[in-house]
């Protein structure tokens, strides 16, 4: 775990509070991911070349310039201004070397597909090294963009050494989304998307001791699976504008199921019905085993804590619950959905039960 974040989680009020700014990064280092490019995995040094970037899209009141939250929106709020670390569409000067960026979609509702767009409208490839704060087995290069749902974190390595000083590169979201229900899945043409951030390459002399991802360094191997004790299924739906999970509404005082500590479980999430949901599970991370009966991409095969459910998607997750007992939620991290009770509570204890394990899947 390295790229974490924290935010207000007041039930029914999370979206309003986080929209007003109650969110931040929580970065962890260890003997491998050291924050020093001369040691460990040799990832770009923090803080000069390791930069957290929190993305939000917001609306502002044109009369007073203050952030404007729409209380009447129950679907998901899309902003017309794109913010990086609280600034609207800023620029960032980079030297001609490798950088680590920690990209966080901090919501409230939009899905991004990020590209690095050069001034000739071609794509600059980059490397994904970590998903939801967990290093992948190896870096994965992408030239076709990178999806980030709300609450997902993607650490990437971008190499600017091939650019001449004065070059301009845009971080561009090309995923079309017209309402809070989810993206259309149209990918806009290069230059037609939202330019969220501008990189300006400067000519300062610079050294680079960081690892070249093209050498395929090995970071982290996910643990071997142990035999699962139970399979639970969760269907995310909506009745009369009320979110339901397996046809039940949220009640903070109701324990929907109990997980036995130190056991492994399979959870199948079925979502959609014309809605997209980034589903977040508290406390324990998972490995995604299956997405729509296909092996997930290498980028999704690390340890994660957010499962992106596009329209009519289903995913299979493997968990091994360890360490602590306690009370935890699973919820949609489109925080507007979350605040309209798209959530359930589960407890971890030393007994467990078999609730939510009768899997009558429609697909």
């Amino acid at each position, binding site marked *: 775990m390295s790229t974490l974040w924290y935010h207000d989680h007041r039930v029914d009020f999370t979206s309003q509070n986080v929209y007003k700014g109650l969110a931040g990064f929580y970065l962890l280092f260890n003997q491998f991911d050291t924050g020093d490019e001369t040691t460990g995995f040799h990832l770009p040094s923090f803080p000069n070349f390791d930069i957290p970037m929190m993305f939000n899209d917001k609306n502002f009141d044109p009369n007073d*310039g203050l952030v404007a939250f729409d209380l009447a929106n129950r679907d998901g709020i899309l902003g017309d201004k794109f913010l990086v670390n609280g600034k609207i569409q800023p620029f960032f000067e980079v030297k001609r070397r490798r950088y680590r960026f920690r990209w966080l979609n901090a919501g409230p509702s939009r899905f991004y597909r990020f590209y690095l767009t050069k001034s000739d409208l071609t794509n600059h490839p980059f490397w994904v090294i970590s998903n939801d704060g967990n290093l992948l087995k190896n870096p994965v290069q992408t030239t076709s963009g990178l999806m980030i749902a709300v609450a997902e974190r993607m650490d990437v390595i971008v190499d600017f050494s091939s650019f001449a000083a004065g070059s301009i590169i845009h971080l561009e979201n090309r995923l079309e989304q017209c309402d809070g229900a989810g993206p259309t899945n149209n990918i806009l043409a290069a230059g037609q998307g939202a330019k969220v951030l501008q990189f300006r390459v400067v000519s300062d002399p610079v050294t680079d001791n960081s690892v070249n991802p093209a050498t395929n360094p090995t970071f982290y191997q996910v643990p071997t699976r142990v035999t699962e004790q139970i399979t639970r299924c969760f269907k995310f739906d909506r009745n*009369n*504008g*009320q979110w339901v999970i397996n046809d039940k509404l949220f*009640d903070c005082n109701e324990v929907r199921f109990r997980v036995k500590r130190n056991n492994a479980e399979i959870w199948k999430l079925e979502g959609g019905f014309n809605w997209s949901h980034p589903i977040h599970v508290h406390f324990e991370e998972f490995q995604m085993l299956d997405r729509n009966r296909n092996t997930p991409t290498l980028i999704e095969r690390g340890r994660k804590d957010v499962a992106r459910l596009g329209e009519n998607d289903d995913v299979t997750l493997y968990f091994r619950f360890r360490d602590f007992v306690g009370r935890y939620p699973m919820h949609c991290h489109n925080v507007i959905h979350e605040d309209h*009770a798209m959530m359930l509570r589960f407890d971890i204890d030393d007994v467990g039960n078999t609730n939510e394990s009768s899997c009558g899947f429609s697909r």
Partner: protein
Amino acid sequence: MSDISRRKVLAGLAVAPLAPLVGGVITRAGGQIDKFPKAMSPREKLQARYFPNFELTTHEGKKVRFYDDLIKNKIVVINFFYAQCEGICVPITQNLKRVQNLLGKRVGREIFMYSISLKPEQDNPQALKHYVQMHKIKPGWTFLTGKPEEIAILRRRLGFFDSKAGLDKDLTNHIGMIRYGNEPHQWWAMCPGQANPPWIVESILWMEPKHDVHT
């Protein structure tokens, strides 16, 4: 200072720091007026945006103004329904009756419950009165009707619409959420009308600044 009054003071302090940022004209050292003119207070903004001051009629035939008489300075619980509804209105009404019972004497004194008709053409005050009597609803919970075009606006302003137009026209699919809030504190949220009544009650009681259910 008693514990309760200390909490009231703290609750007041929590909102106070926002005031200088949003209230008046911000002048710079040289007397230059900032880019944005004097704006409405956050509370005035909420009123202007969400709480039109339409005239409504209660199930007792009394004329009331939505903001002035029903919302201002109150803790409220709002849902939409119609008297002939055979879908979710009945379970929600039954659910809210349990909520009203659990809230006890607070309803009508500190907490006000409102059900607004989605079919104001049919639901005249007599029809609403009949509904109240049929369901044996106690005082403190007011059923409301009004001009259809104004009810339509009110429904949208309060967030009781489906963004998919086809679904929005289908009254059997009408929104089963309830809105709860504290007007002077500018706290507004929603919860499902079919949620477990004790959980709905807990949500509503959060609107009392002195209430301390989450310690």
